[in-house]
């Protein structure tokens, strides 16, 4: 590593330690930010010599990254940004902190995928899904798919592990090659994890025609784009690998969506040569991920935290949640997106019949939404009020990003 990179890396580690010691954060961003100021190529220097996997998509990045790290861990030490700090400063910080490791698994914000592909020259990139998320500042969904596709054209040597169920991802993962110039399309391994959310993929990204669906199949009515045959498939409580062998997956994380994340993790690990039979038991050690799915016992209540940031992830959260009293909390601060209109993209009907409490900065937006949805609810001002309002036993908490962090803070920053 060049001297400048060494200095930058060391300063980066020190800043992260200071940030944690000062109680200002978990140090996962600030160190990397300072390091990158000293050496803009620090991320590239820190990546050199490591076999790297990148994980990107709208939903499931953090959990899939954690599961993938566990699976790749079969082979040796893995550096990872496990706190969801998923921009280049977070990657820099994570790699500097981990020191020399043969492997790294990095969660990447979907807007930064092109830049991080460039800097880290990964062996594998996993593309999970693309759906609407924080539209007041995020790129519109189709444009995001276009950016991914353009980035992959420049990195046709990277191995892609991608979701066969998401038309936008399939299109992004299959840019045409240029045989005349010896450029082959990227090698893609497809996984199928099921997809509950379809409302961002009715229109073909290639030709603008309607996309038809029947069961798990989908196809464009105007061009050859269609669902590729997946190599890795979720089946019952396990995963079918490309050889047709079925592996039972016992997770501590709830929901079918996490079985899909596990299938992705096994597929990515396989690109490094990890056999699913060796990796599958390691997936069960993951309990909670940066507070997501964490369970806390307080005042006789067993509180479980579910993060739901956008319409697609709310649908998954309802699938995971038990039939128990449920607290919903909505904020609309910068990290959440300022426009709460998406509440109407979510059908809250699965909550009918449960005791529903609402809170958060934007509880009134939620109140109007639930009213129209015929879901009775009770508005509470604080988390403690919510606890007092439900009987002893399970309380499911479903919250969007900053609302989730607020509640996590009430519970002593549970991870």
């Amino acid at each position, binding site marked *: 590593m060049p001297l400048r990179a060494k200095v930058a890396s060391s300063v980066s580690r020190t800043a992260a330690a200071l940030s944690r010691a000062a109680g200002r954060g978990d140090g996962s961003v600030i160190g990397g930010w300072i390091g990158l100021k000293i050496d803009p190529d620090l991320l590239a220097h820190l990546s050199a010599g490591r076999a790297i996997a990148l994980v990107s998509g709208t939903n499931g990045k953090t959990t899939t990254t954690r599961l993938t790290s566990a699976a790749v861990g079969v082979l040796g030490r893995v550096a990872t940004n496990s706190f969801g700090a998923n921009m280049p400063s977070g990657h820099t910080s994570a790699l500097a902190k981990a020191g020399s490791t043969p492997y790294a698994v990095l969660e990447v914000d979907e807007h930064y995928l092109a830049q991080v592909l460039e800097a880290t020259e990964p062996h594998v990139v996993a593309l999970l899904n693309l759906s609407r998320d924080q539209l007041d500042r995020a790129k*519109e969904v189709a444009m995001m798919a276009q950016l991914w596709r353009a980035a992959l054209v420049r990195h046709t040597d990277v191995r892609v592990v991608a979701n066969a169920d998401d038309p936008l991802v399939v299109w992004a993962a299959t840019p045409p090659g240029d045989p005349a110039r010896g450029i082959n399309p990227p090698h893609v391994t497809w996984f199928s994890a099921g997809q509950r959310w379809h409302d961002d993929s009715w229109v073909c990204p290639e030709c*603008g025609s*309607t996309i038809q669906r029947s069961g798990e199949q989908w196809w464009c009515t105007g061009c050859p784009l269609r669902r590729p045959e997946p190599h890795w498939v979720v089946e019952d409580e396990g995963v079918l690998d490309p050889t047709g062998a079925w592996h039972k997956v016992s997770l501590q994380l709830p929901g079918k969506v996490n079985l899909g994340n596990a299938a992705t993790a096994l597929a990515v690990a396989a690109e490094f040569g990890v056999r699913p039979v060796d990796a599958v038991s390691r997936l069960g050690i993951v309990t909670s991920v940066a507070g997501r799915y964490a369970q806390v016992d307080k005042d006789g209540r067993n509180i479980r935290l579910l993060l739901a940031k956008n319409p697609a992830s709310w649908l998954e959260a309802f699938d995971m949640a038990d039939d128990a009293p449920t607290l919903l909390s909505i904020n609309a601060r910068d990290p959440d997106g*300022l426009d709460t*209109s998406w509440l*109407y*993209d979510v059908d809250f009907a699965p909550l009918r019949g449960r005791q529903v409490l609402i809170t958060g900065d934007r509880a009134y937006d939620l109140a*109007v*939404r639930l009213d*129209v949805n015929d879901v009775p609810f009770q508005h509470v001002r604080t988390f403690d009020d919510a606890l007092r309002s439900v009987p002893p036993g399970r309380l499911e908490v479903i919250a969007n990003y900053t609302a989730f962090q607020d509640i996590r803070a009430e519970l002593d920053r549970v991870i």
Partner: protein
Amino acid sequence: MSSESLRIVWIYPDLLSTYGDRGNALILARRARQRGMPVEVLEVRSDERLPATADIYLVGGGEDGPQALGAQRLLADGGLHRAVAQGSVVFGVCAGYQLLGTSFFAKGVQCRGLELLDLRSDRGESRAVGELAGEIDPRLGLPPLTGFENHGGRTHLGPEVSPLARVTAGVGNDGATEGAWRGKLLGTYSHGPALARNPALADLLLRWATGAHQLPPLDDTWSDRLRNERRSAVAAARA
């Protein structure tokens, strides 16, 4: 009304439903049912024919590509024009508002609109993102408009339409006026969705559709709280 029940058509949810636009259909239907009106909501996808005999047509927001495609298909279909000629109500939001005009820009290209409203849209220097508020045209007799806007367009009104509101916060059409209306056609840049934030606007559309001069009042406790909270937030941001 054209038949036994109030027929609401949500135009092209596969293309124009980017900002919770389903909410406007849900709220209209609910407020009609609460007054005892039977309601039918039809979601018409862009590969289907648009029925010309519904009472209210909703056109929502969308990205540039789907907006251009939606306008092309509506022009080719002709159903919305026939419906308007028969006196149906049309409510357009954001991209759906722009395409009711004579022209708009999508992906840097000027596109032909439906020419149902005398207005045209071009690109502004910056994107308008944030809370939108305004005093609504007094002839409509509605409380202030509240919403959330997120668009790169600027809309210029011709003499045949009236502004929906005078802007008190945000940008709307051009920083001075917001939205437009003529007869039973009305467009706005407000998301929220617009009818969740402005139930009186939903009732205006229902009155236009039914010919009723008045509708029985509903319990709007939560919408009122939402409106007050948003009004305070806009005032606090300005202070």
